[in-house]
């Protein structure tokens, strides 16, 4: 089992009047290392509209590289515009994963639209930055990874990586909408695609992580980190029903692979779970593992899937 030492909550969303779009939530953290700071992209929400619906935005916070609990800067505006009428990302951009490839900053993000019979649908878009990752312009008005015969809806949660000379995208794909107490709840599984250019993707078309707690287990945040000759995936999973609770809410799981495509799940190794009390006492979710100056960290969400922000844990020992 890995030993993660919880360091506490590192960022609390509180946009105030300057940033009304950052009222609450700081979800799905993902890092990008700069010389003096670690930029953590996340997704947040303005106040809900008159129907109680949110339109998530994505932004970043720069943490001091020498002391990650020191916030140096918070984005002045969202990094991505919402899409126009009828476009896949008209009602939200969440989550976002940014990679620096040579001098190009490229973002993969999930765009949200609203539907009539189910509350939403999601597909993955791509954008690039001309200003060092502060804002991104979309490479098209449509998704770069949309729907397919085997992945019919809710293509979300992109995590972009460059391994072994190819682009790798881990993401989730909706399996079914399960009606619970009259309300459709999405069930999704972890999937992957690979690409030579990051634009044209070959899907692997199979579930990478076997379901453990129930057949309709929902899996999210497939975060892959390479260390000591092994690919380590931390992810989160939850029950399909009544998951906005301690009992059925998100927990963090773990799987490993040596070839990037075949994964062995072993949640007993994850080494991080809910606290007895405090901001992460009901659920832990959306893990992201990154290395800064020889130390390995995990950013993750606590109660209400990041409503009150995200925290950090540091690894004691090695990832092997």
């Amino acid at each position, binding site marked *: 089992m890995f030993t993660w030492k919880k360091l506490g909550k590192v960022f609390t969303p509180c946009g105030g009047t300057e940033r009304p779009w950052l009222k609450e939530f700081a979800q799905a953290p993902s890092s990008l290392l700069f010389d003096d700071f670690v930029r953590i992209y996340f997704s947040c929400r303005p106040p809900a509209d008159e129907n109680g619906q949110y339109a998530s935005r994505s932004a970043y916070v720069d943490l001091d590289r020498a002391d990650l609990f020191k916030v140096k800067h918070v984005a002045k505006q969202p990094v991505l515009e919402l899409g126009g009428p*009828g*476009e896949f990302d008209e009602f939200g951009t969440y989550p976002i994963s940014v990679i620096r490839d040579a001098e190009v900053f490229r973002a993969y993000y999930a765009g949200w639209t609203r*539907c009539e019979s189910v509350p939403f649908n999601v*597909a993955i878009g791509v954008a690039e930055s001309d200003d060092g990752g502060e804002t991104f312009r979309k490479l*098209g008005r449509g998704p770069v990874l949309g729907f397919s015969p085997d992945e*019919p*809806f809710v293509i979300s949660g992109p995590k972009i990586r460059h391994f072994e000379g190819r682009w790798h995208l881990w993401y989730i794909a909706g399996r079914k*909408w399960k009606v619970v107490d009259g309300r459709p709840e999405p069930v999704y599984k972890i999937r992957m695609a690979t690409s030579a250019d990051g634009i044209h993707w070959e899907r692997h078309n199979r579930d990478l992580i076997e379901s453990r707690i129930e057949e309709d287990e929902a899996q999210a945040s497939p975060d892959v980190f390479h260390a000591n000759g092994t690919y380590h995936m931390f992810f989160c999973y939850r029950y399909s029903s009544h998951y906005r609770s301690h009992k059925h809410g998100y927990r963090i799981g773990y799987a490993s692979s040596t070839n990037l495509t075949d994964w062995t799940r072993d949640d007993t190794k994850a080494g991080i779970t809910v606290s007895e009390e405090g901001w992460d006492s009901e659920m832990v979710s959306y893990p992201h593992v990154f290395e800064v100056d020889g130390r390995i960290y995990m950013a993750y969400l606590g109660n209400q899937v990041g409503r009150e922000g995200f925290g950090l844990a540091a690894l004691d020992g090695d990832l092997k």
Partner: protein
Amino acid sequence: MNWRKLGRVFDPSEYTLPNGCKEYAQSPQALVFDDFVRIYFSTRALDPANNKFLSHIAFADFSKDLRNVIRVSDHTVIPLGGLGCFDEHGIFPMNVLRHNDMVLGYTCGWSRRVSVSVDTSIGLALSHDGGLTFERCGDGPVLTSSLKEPYLVGDGFVKVINDVFHMWYIFGTDWKSYAPGAAPDRTYKIGHAVSEDGVNWRKDEARRIIADRLGESESQALPTVCGIGGSHHMFFCYRQSFDFRANPDNAYRIGHAWSTDLENWTRDDSTPLLEGTPGDWDSDMQCYPHVFESEGNIYLLYNGNNFGRHGFGLAVLER
């Protein structure tokens, strides 16, 4: 090219249709058998949840001279998609063709949206019983929105030419309100994709292969392609993107283009010139063409007024 109109050949109000459908026989598509011609079409039921329409596929079998209806489908040809799927709220149209021992059905699936009325994608379904029933290949689409085609991918028409699957289809370019407070209207254009297996498609993404006649706000729909006299001929329908439902001046008409290389198309709407007689079933609108060959004749099926609410008619090429 002279087309002789043979009049309306199917009026849905004269038949009992499956799935509780009443009225509408839209986008007729032919499958020719030895003894009869099966014509698939989309008809409509009311969704009990909200009184909105649900389009279902049905068919009518015609005598080879296309003058008599032998029977009308009395069963579900293809069920609609499940909760949250691209084809949950309707299939309109379905293009059919024989391939190996199967009949392939390329469906245009509809699902309702909130800020705009609908989105569409193209699915694939297979029939192993000669086209009586179809089973979809997966819950999702084979052709859908992509980086440069943001929404409303639909109306696929597939033809195998020299062992390559060709699909002509439409993709949305705009959702726009043309008057203050009005619901947004859509604009779409005709595109082209190819495939080796009919499942995995390569789009010529966002290339509008047919020149606009009415300008940027022209909507082009339902391409159908047929070889005539050594060239490829495409028929489609086109209209203004606004005020096209009630105003005959902005309503659908049949357009035409031809090509010798399947890459470059020359638009020429001077044929088929199906002008309607005032007061007749197709006086205000002609739309949703489908061209097919049977017994050495080339036929054009199409819908008339009200987008096919009152059935479909036929024209034959005179050579």
